[in-house]
């Protein structure tokens, strides 16, 4: 976009949007800021409690199962890598939908939005499987069957934080999928074509990328560290 702006542009002399973005998009950014602080508060309280604990469960022992794989097979990180891949891929299809929107290509927007929605649903299914599996192992809010890495008895902090934070993130993914479905329907109705721009797709895209961004941190904090 930089080339469309004349050099020495005076943004604050009136008559122009000083930030050169549409109002709704700017507000989406500020909403995402506040949401980032909510997730930040969750993750930092998790870190704070973890630093205050003498022991903590080893994520490679907890997250080692894969659907349809025998219980004896230890596959640490494999399933969560798949989930990460799905979410990154759906972020890519989202940004391709935004690019198609810039070119006012209604058909391509539809196609990429469908891919993005499928990615979101796949991610949610993976999470549902993981939660079910962990619940089957005896883990839930208020109960933790996994001992600490050093073999001592663990408190329920680990499971409480895990289910709260991945649950809050999963809820964001769910709302993102709903928003994307609404955008898909509006696109199919030709609303954006009539309006002459696809800024709504961009705003939904910002939200969707943010969900991906949060997952990057959840992935690091719970599965890697």
């Amino acid at each position, binding site marked *: *976009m930089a*080339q*469309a*702006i004349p050099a020495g542009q005076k943004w604050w002399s009136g*008559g*122009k*949007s000083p*930030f*050169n*973005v*549409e*109002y709704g998009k700017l507000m989406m*950014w500020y909403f995402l*800021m506040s949401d980032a*602080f909510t997730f930040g508060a969750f993750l*930092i*309280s998790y*870190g*704070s409690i973890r*630093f*205050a*604990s*003498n*022991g903590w469960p080893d994520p*490679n022992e907890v997250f080692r199962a894969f659907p349809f794989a025998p219980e004896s097979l230890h596959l*640490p*990180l494999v399933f969560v*890598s798949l989930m990460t*891949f799905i979410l*990154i*891929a759906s*972020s*890519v299809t*989202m*940004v391709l939908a935004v*690019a198609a929107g*810039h070119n006012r290509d209604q058909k391509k927007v539809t196609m990429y939005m469908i891919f993005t929605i499928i990615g979101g649903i796949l991610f949610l299914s993976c999470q549902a499987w993981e939660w079910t599996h962990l*619940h*089957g*192992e*005896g*883990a*839930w809010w208020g*109960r933790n*069957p*996994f*001992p600490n890495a*050093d*073999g*001592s*008895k663990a408190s329920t902090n680990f499971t409480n934080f895990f289910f709260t934070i991945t649950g809050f993130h999963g809820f964001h993914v769910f709302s993102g999928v709903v928003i994307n479905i609404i955008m898909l329907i509006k696109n199919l109705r030709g609303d954006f074509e009539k309006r002459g721009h696809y*800024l709504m797709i961009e705003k939904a895209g910002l939200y969707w*990328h*943010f969900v*991906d*961004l949060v997952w*990057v*941190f959840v992935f*690091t904090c719970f599965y*890697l560290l």
Partner: protein
Amino acid sequence: MSSIETTADQHQDHGGTGVKAIMRTFWILLGITLFELLLATIHLKTNGAFPPKAVLNGAYLILTCAKAFYIIAEFMHLRHEIKNLIMTIAVPALLFVWFIIAFLWDGNSYKELRNRYDEHHREQSLIKVAPASEEPAAKKPGAE
């Protein structure tokens, strides 16, 4: 649209949104994630000998921040917005630096103090328990 003009809805040129740039970012993100997994796997296969846990965690944090940068800058297009907008996002986000240092430091300090002054707590955390997989299934509340 509104009566206030922006150049955002004209888009003859869109810096980071070309398909090539998108795919490049995708490969970078995928590459970083695979590299993280590679490090984790080496760490597991060498029974935690290499790379050492502290080095590994530092690497994870740096790589995570790199991923966050690419998502925000390219996918969310922030790098191609004008500077004032970038600053209203980036400057408040710097609060996280203080948040993380302060709260992790505080958690660690609480652990040290508690271990020093609460002997019972310290002793309890030294007792080993049997691994969960050896417990009978009926004991697990989730396995009904």
